[in-house]
């Protein structure tokens, strides 16, 4: 009777907590369309004024990096310490630069 194919699609929910902040992923929910997803996200994730703006994205529209490739993908940045300001030792007089 309830084939998975009949399930409402899954949406990922992103909430902006306050003006000036980024939208942050906070969970997911099933909804039949975008309008319903926004409404339900409001009801589920912002009942205590946790947000002032909501984004929803169909979960199957998200492309993610492969966790199997985590090392080859992200580790090359590890030895590039010269990309950080702390790499450069400057005289005290100008070190606040």
């Amino acid at each position, binding site marked *: 009777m309830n084939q998975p194919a*009949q399930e*409402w699609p899954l949406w990922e929910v992103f909430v902006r907590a306050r003006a000036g902040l980024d939208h942050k992923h*906070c*969970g997911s*929910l099933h909804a039949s369309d975008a309008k*319903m997803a926004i409404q339900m996200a409001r009801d*589920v994730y912002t009942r*205590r004024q946790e947000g002032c703006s909501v984004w929803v994205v169909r979960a199957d529209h998200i492309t*993610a990096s492969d966790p199997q490739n985590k090392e080859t993908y992200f580790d090359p940045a590890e030895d590039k310490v010269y990309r950080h300001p702390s790499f450069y030792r400057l005289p005290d007089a100008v070190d606040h630069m």
Partner: protein
Amino acid sequence: MYTQAMDTAPKDATPAVRSADEAALQTRFDARIDAGEFIEAKDWMPAHYRKTLIRQISQHAHSEIVGMLPEGNWITRAPTLKRKAILLAKVQDEGGHGLYLYAAAETLGVSRDELLEALHSGQAKYSSIFNYPTLTWADVGTIGWLVDGAAIMNQVPICRCSYAPYARAMIRICREESFHQRQGFDALLTMMQQGTDAQRAMVQDAVNRWWWPCLMMFGPPDDQSPNSAQGMRWGIKRISNDELRQKFVDATVEQARVLGVSLPDPALQWNAARGHWDFGAIDWSEFWQVVGGEGPCNRERLSARVNAWQAGAWVREAAMAHAQKHTIQQEAA
């Protein structure tokens, strides 16, 4: 609410022969657990870890939504508009908790419909506590104080669960639970301090009925929880059933004194040597009876869930049809 350690799943036989690849992955997984790292949905994990989590998270999710029923029973009969608004907010929270947890379980590769089907067929369990009736308004306050109180005790350690989507859901849930316990205590305190003798007696009666089932919420004693060690090893379980139960008793005794009610246990006594309250023996035959489907409200609870699901089927289908119609119209335009 509410998770309950029940250890009801059959033991999986570990396959004797594993590929070298899998053994390497297993070693790496164990090392990550030992290092206190979090496991995310797409990471490799042992099949038994996945299965255990699906079972535990879905039991927990089922408990949240079945837990809406005994309290929902009182929404239309709350004594004041204030209490009604509070109770509505609490029951709505529990629905949200169910959603967070179902979503966490779904990240492990099981569908929402499959999870609900397991609940409706009676194959999946939910917390035994919700198979008891809410006879009076004092039961609603007592559920908030004791049942949510026990749930918080159970749930706080799961905020550090090794499976990150579960841990994140639990953090959100624990943030919301504190109000549940406080509003319950507040409702009882109002009756104890400003109520009639009959209302005070009603509170005491509710506490008498809920106390022992609440102690059972922590699950069987440690020496009868064979899967606990594996749960600890995997960072799914952090504190043992008996330890959590003791913490709950210790915290509750003082609260009961402030409230002005007694706890229905003649053996309850401060043990200075242990630094804990001693308490009487729990009737585990009652627990297993309720878990096994023979509690006072098992049939009523399950049929309420099944009816809600079946009666809502046309709404789910209509919403999908509406969405599909709009997609087709948009594509045509």
